[in-house]
């Protein structure tokens, strides 16, 4: 499931998007895959969870 939380970075608030089941997420508008994403608010993108599990250190 996609999880989105607002996080504070210094004086800025960003939207943190990630999968709660350790899967890559897909930024729909750009078709770009991320492990997790930090975006400005309001976020310009929508995300969906992929079936691919995150494996750290992979190319």
């Amino acid at each position, binding site marked *: 499931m996609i999880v989105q939380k607002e996080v504070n*970075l*210094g004086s*800025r608030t*960003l939207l943190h998007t990630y999968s709660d089941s350790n899967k890559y997420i897909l*930024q729909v508008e750009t078709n*770009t895959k*991320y*492990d*997790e*994403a*930090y*975006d*400005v608010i309001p976020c310009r*993108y929508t995300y969906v969870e992929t079936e691919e599990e995150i494996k*750290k*250190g*992979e*190319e």
Partner: protein
Amino acid sequence: MGLKNRIENNTNEIKKVNEKLKVLNGFVRPLSNLNFSQSATANYSATYTIKDNETYIFIHIPTTNKAITLRFGGTITSVDWGDGTTDAILSHTYSATGDYVIKVISGTSICSYILDNLDDNKCILKCYLSNSILSLNSGAFSNCYNLQQVVINADTVITIYSDTFSTDAYNTKFYVPDNLVEDYKVATNWVNFADRIYPLSSLGE
């Protein structure tokens, strides 16, 4: 085509040329007074001009017979290791300590870790990415505690993961094409570094 349209087209072309010139001016500045660490100082007296498809990695080799391996995605046609050796192999052994500039042609991405060994990543001082590098994978610049600058030459915002760079371990400055500075500052995951993103035209100031 009407005169007005032709003038507008010419004006746009002039703007594009000016942007390119700004980029080139940034790259041809002498690279000197680079502080590698408290115990060593990198001294690059040469001037480097970035061309299309060329990535430059500035490293300090701390020990003799030091073997390193680069991790790039895409096709690599040439690696100039900066010690008189040029080949197309991504592994090399430096016989002497010192500061070297590696030139890689060309690649499309940088994998984790850029030097294939987390500890070796500390050797990297600067990285000038060619316009063919469009993504930096997860962990690519992990442990690059001495990384001072990353210069990006692609004409679009390149993709990074949330952990491509450490968010708090060092103070790397990112130089991007002038016309993309604002795009980078709000781009996914780049927002973490918004206060460290600068226009290429300010490189060396």
